[in-house]
């Protein structure tokens, strides 16, 4: 099995399930391929970074009072 295919299976396994044959091939390949083992780890790290990065809220992000007032005035027009 090629490295390209094995990295595909790594991603597939996280989303869909692998067949028994695919699981076996992947395990065998990873046992003897260090770049693909690294890829597998990097893939997990990227998942972690994306999840954490896009959920990280910043206390200093605030909307200006002016913009808030604009929103309120738009809402008041809808309400009445």
């Amino acid at each position, binding site marked *: 099995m*090629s*490295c*390209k*295919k094995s*990295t*595909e299976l*790594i*991603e*597939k396994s*996280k*989303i*869909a399930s692998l067949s028994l044959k695919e699981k076996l091939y992947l395990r065998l390949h990873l046992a003897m391929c260090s*770049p*693909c083992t*690294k*890829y597998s*780890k*990097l*893939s997990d*790290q*990227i*998942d*972690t*970074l*994306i*999840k*954490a*990065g*896009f*959920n*990280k*809220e*910043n*206390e200093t*992000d*605030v*909307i200006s009072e002016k*913009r*808030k007032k*604009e*929103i*309120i005035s*738009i*809402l*008041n027009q*809808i*309400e009445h």
Partner: protein
Amino acid sequence: MANSLKTLESITATDLVNLYTNDLYRFAVAKTKNKEISEDLVQDTFIVAVTKLNTFRGESTHKTWLISILRNKISDYYRKKTRENISDKEMDDQTLSFNASGSWNKENIPFVFEETEHLLDNTQFTQVFYDCIDGLPQLWSSVIKMKYVNPTKSKEICKELNITDTNLWQIVHRSKLKLKDCLGTNWIKNN
């Protein structure tokens, strides 16, 4: 909490804005990394909320309710972005990572971060990281964001973005290879 003392009937649009604008805004900025768009998304969220305020049953808090509206707005935003750019379908398989026989190219062998816990505190890294994600083809970055950011079930992502199950993990695969190369060039080599 002061806000929970207000009866459902008496809470006004102005109250909602004063109480929750910044919570919603921070949530939106975290997900979109774009302040201007976040302001608009927050405004749109309140517009939906006000028109539906009479259907709010108090089964959740106002904040949870508003966040759920905002989540939908963010999904709409990803989807719309994708539709606008669907013409540049870079769905071809041209990744730099592998040679014709599917082995790793020497320059593109994967690396591993020493640690990921503190990386996001480094603003230089986050800049590179978000730029790399933005550099993905639109459909791909929408898939990634819906998958990891606004945790959506795979089935729903496929339905909303009109792709198949197989497309989904293929896109994730290609996106990760691209991110690997982008981070390798712009971060690993310089640090």
